[in-house]
């Protein structure tokens, strides 16, 4: 996508995000984690800098950022605060679905244009009581009467649900159809009422504030995203989720390794001429971190190149691409805790203490969510079944 005059250069978006990561997100990360509270300072700063509309096409007033650019932004923010980065990533994933599947309708075009001026934060409601983590099936169905819809969904987990300006929900195309015949529905704040059903007191990612909610919504039928969720899931939700998540998990791991490296350097300064033993561990973990980074970068670049071709989007519906995104997600989510574990071995007791500048406890707890957030076992089972017919030729 070529940038128009409204679009800011990527270097500017990166610099803005880096400043927010260091000066806002990192400063509040410990209290956000300790109190399991929404990172309101960071989100206010992101909205102020108009970083919630970076994905909106430049023709509609946004920055038209590519997937690899967005991934870099999420990774940089994660170095300051994991929960803030997860919230930014989740929001961008929802925007990706609207941009890529709604842009041709007047309603969504207008919504995207408004996003630039009002910077709404959009949440994701794919989880549902009774579907057990399978995002590709829904129990609830949207009911359309005339030009209005109504929908009630019992969601198990909705990140920053109480702080959203809009929600994007999966549901059946109508109550009578099959569980996998799904659509996406955008509900804006005036359209829904939330009833919180569970709490969010977790090991990590505490600032995402992701309890269960019963969501009651009603609105205009135009708010139903055109097409099937089967397609928007494969072409947009899965690619953006797995790349942006992997990038932010890598950012968390990078900050943990950064803390370990600072400690190794401090030790080296005491005895110039002798390489500290911990430097060997640092060399090893540094290589793992680079492999992780290259994995998401390569996938994002390949995706961006594919987007530039005519046949690009439909290619994403192939098993080859589904496997690529699955592999990225399972590999990075396994790698992140291992890297943080290695950083902990380097920092030792100083990393184990919560009140030390070398502390990696929060990082460790946060990355443990990676393999659960769409269960790796579930993904591996899907990949295993795809490999029964995929020939990779």
């Amino acid at each position, binding site marked *: 996508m070529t940038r128009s005059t409204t679009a800011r250069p990527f270097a500017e978006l990166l610099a803005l995000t880096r400043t927010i990561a260091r000066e806002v997100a990192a400063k509040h990360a410990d209290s956000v984690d300790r109190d399991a509270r929404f990172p309101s300072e960071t989100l206010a700063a992101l909205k102020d800098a108009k970083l919630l509309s970076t994905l909106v096409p430049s023709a509609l007033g946004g920055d038209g950022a590519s997937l690899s650019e967005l991934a870099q932004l999420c990774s940089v923010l994660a170095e300051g605060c994991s929960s803030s980065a997860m919230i930014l990533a989740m929001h961008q994933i929802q925007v990706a679905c609207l941009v890529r599947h709604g842009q041709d309708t007047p309603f969504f075009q207008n919504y995207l244009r408004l996003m630039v001026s009002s910077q709404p934060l959009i949440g994701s409601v794919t989880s549902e009581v009774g579907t057990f983590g399978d995002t*590709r*099936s829904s129990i609830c169905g949207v009911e359309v009467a005339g030009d209005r819809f109504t929908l009630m969904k019992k969601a198990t987990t909705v990140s920053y649900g109480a702080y959203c300006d809009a929600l994007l929900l999966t549901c059946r*195309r109508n109550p009578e*159809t*099959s*569980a*996998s*015949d799904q659509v996406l529905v955008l509900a804006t704040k005036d359209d829904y009422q939330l009833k919180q059903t569970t709490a969010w007191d977790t090991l990590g990612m505490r600032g995402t504030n992701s309890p269960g909610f019963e969501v009651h919504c009603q609105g205009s039928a135009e708010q139903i995203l055109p097409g*099937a969720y*089967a*397609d928007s899931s*494969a072409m947009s939700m899965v690619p953006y989720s797995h790349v942006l998540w992997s990038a932010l998990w890598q950012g968390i791991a990078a900050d943990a390794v950064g803390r370990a490296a600072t400690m190794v350097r401090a030790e080296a300064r005491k005895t110039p001429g002798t390489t500290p033993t911990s430097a060997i561990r640092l060399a090893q973990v540094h290589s793992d971190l680079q492999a992780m980074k290259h994995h998401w970068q390569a996938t994002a670049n390949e995706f961006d190149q594919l987007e530039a071709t005519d046949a690009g989007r*439909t290619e994403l*519906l*192939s*098993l*080859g691409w589904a496997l690529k995104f699955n592999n990225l997600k399972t590999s990075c989510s396994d790698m992140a805790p291992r890297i943080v574990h290695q950083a902990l071995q380097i920092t030792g007791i100083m990393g184990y203490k919560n009140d030390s500048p070398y502390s990696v406890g929060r990082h460790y707890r946060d990355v443990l969510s990676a393999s659960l957030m769409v269960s790796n076992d579930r993904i591996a089972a*899907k990949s295993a*079944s*795809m490999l*029964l*017919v*995929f*020939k*990779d*030729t």
Partner: protein
Amino acid sequence: MPTNAPTSPLTASERVRQVLKAHGRLATAIESLGDTDSLYQAGLTSHASINVMLGLEGEFNIEFPDSLLKRGTFESVAAITSALETLTPG
């Protein structure tokens, strides 16, 4: 139409329907669906579609190239039958 059973009394689309009946786990009975009706709307999940692909590869003695392993290929009985027509038994 490729077939490894030239004496089979069934047409290709009837054989496709048999495979769908055995492996498609459709919410709507296959008998009540037309050749161009959406199998996905009838409840074909991505997991069941893999079993349908395996069933078809066995029944028609063919291998789907990766380029055909897309949702669109398995959209309807007609779509599957026309994809099979492009393949020769191995």
